[in-house]
């Protein structure tokens, strides 16, 4: 049983380490994605439609604090 718990702890450590590394690497990224399989040309990022700069978030109008979600 204890060996299985060790495996669970190691899995969580690897997951945390990997996500931390990802945060460091893509923190200043432009939203493009890392694709590492084969030599096929990378298609445009699925999150970008055109090269226009991103507009301000539509959810912020002024500096007022956000009210509670209406869906809850």
């Amino acid at each position: 049983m204890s060996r299985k718990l060790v495996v669970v702890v190691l899995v969580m450590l690897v997951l945390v380490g990997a996500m931390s590394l990802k945060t460091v690497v893509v923190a200043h990224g432009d939203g493009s994605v890392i694709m590492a399989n084969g030599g096929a040309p990378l298609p445009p990022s699925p999150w970008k439609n055109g090269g226009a700069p991103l507009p301000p978030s539509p959810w912020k109008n002024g500096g007022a604090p956000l009210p509670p979600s209406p869906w809850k």
Partner: protein
Amino acid sequence: MPGLLDYSIWVLCTLFEAGVVICAARRGVFRRYLALNLYMLASILVSIIRLKILLAYGFGSAEYMYCYYYSDLLLTIGLYCALMTLYVHVFEDLGAEQYVRLGAVLLLLGTAGFSFAIVQQFSTKILSHFVVEVSQNLYFVGLVLTYVLWGAILKLRETRTRLIQLVLALGLYFSLFAASYALRNLYPGSRGVWDYVTPLSGCILPLAWGYAFWQVPEEARTVPAHLVAVPR
């Protein structure tokens, strides 16, 4: 739209992948490293499908984009399984295969769960976001796992040269992609260069694995400590 050089690199990479399978089959180790060879076969198949869709619908089409990102997730899972079989090879003497399998399944589920938690905030295209997010996260999990495996090889004093070569090639492959991605963001002005460096990096893994299967005999031994020792 990809040019002649893009297509050349792509074809070269696919040929190297076919070379890995041929080398492994000729040396009689196809079944011993089954997951690695199946990954290479899957990569060849995916390349053919991608090419057909690219030629039929075009580079900027939604069809090519969906085909690329969805197939990339399948390939990343395949590479993850290949990496896990390398873990099994390293830990087989300790009789820890069942724990490696348990860890692999838990880590895959954990990565999928973490990715789903991230993409939940998107109200539209949740499946597409999920596919790309899992692929990205699994890539970084693979990167960390490769370095952990290299640490285990050093600690356990693993001496099988071919196994060491396979693991180091994987580490180099993952690191190159992460480094080129980071450098591309650091120097966005030289974007044209990275458009070629990234696909070229894809040739490293099949080339190194093909070399390991063809040139390095199964019984060859290396002391890994000598690989990391700094001469004084």
